[in-house]
């Protein structure tokens, strides 16, 4: 698959630092020089804790390469805002999907899988599968 066909990944957190750091972690664990488009949408536009529909929409548009966009969220309003934007129909690029996954582990799995050239369904499956890894 060409670079232009990579699945895009959007990471939505209540905190800008959390979203950015998880994006950096996922890119790093995927092998550094990966060309997977990953964008963080954390916090509010004013830099506070919360969720911004504007930042989410901009992040999704920035990673859309025509192969779909997988959105991972932390909790509460992040989940609800993405769902509400998807229901609007025209706020997010076509082929955008909210992925049900643990935020950190799911992000790593999604970026690694997308870097291998997988399609949106495979990226989603890999991220969701991260729920299955028990730690104790």
């Amino acid at each position, binding site marked *: 698959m060409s670079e232009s066909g990579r699945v895009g990944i959007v990471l939505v957190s209540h905190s800008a630092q959390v979203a950015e750091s998880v994006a950096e972690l996922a890119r790093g664990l995927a092998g550094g020089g990966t060309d997977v488009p990953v964008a963080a949408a954390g916090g509010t536009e004013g830099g506070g804790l919360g969720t911004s*529909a504007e930042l989410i929409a901009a992040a999704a548009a920035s990673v859309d390469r025509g192969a779909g966009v997988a959105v991972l969220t932390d909790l*509460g*309003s992040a989940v609800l805002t993405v769902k509400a934007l998807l*229901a*609007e129909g025209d706020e997010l690029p076509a082929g955008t999907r909210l992925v049900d996954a643990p935020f950190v582990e799911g992000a790593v799995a999604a970026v690694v899988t997308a870097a291998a050239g997988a399609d949106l369904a495979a990226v989603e499956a890999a991220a969701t599968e991260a729920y299955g890894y028990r730690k104790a």
Partner: protein
Amino acid sequence: MLDADFFRRWMAATAVSVDREADRLTALDSPIGDADHGSNLQRGFTAVAAALEKEPPGTPGAVLLLAARQLISTVGGASGPLYGTLLRRTGKALGDAAEVGREELAAALRAGVDAVMTLGGAAPGDKTMVDALLPAVEALGEGFAAARAAAEQGALATTPMQARKGRASYLGERSIGHQDPGATSSALLLAALAEAAGE
């Protein structure tokens, strides 16, 4: 019959009352939430009022769709997508009609509340906005004043409930004894509706 002007008055009245009650909503949100409900909704409904003033839509449905979009994009907390979904689904149910009756509004609001329950996964008794909205929508068949009273009763009735949704649910039994901020703001929305109707 209720026209676009009625719906604009409803949203404007909501903005005024949310502005007036913002401190109380945030105070209610302090012990069981993250103390931002009042300021979040204040920002959202201020944006709604400004958008409706700038370009007044011509139908009831269009007024609610524009309001919904503003709430989803400006609130910054869970109440944005929840109230946005309530108004968006209600507006869609009203379609392109230039005027709607109270019964039609009641049916449309019921669809809106159903959408809120689907989005948030909340059921009656979970100590959420649903506990004010659902009885209000059911009472709207009797009149606007009845709907306002039912919403107020519903909000008061959340005090002894244990929260099962949202951040307050992490508190378990410690959420008991506090009135739910979301149910309280929903009562404001219904009071504004009665105000717009002159009741």
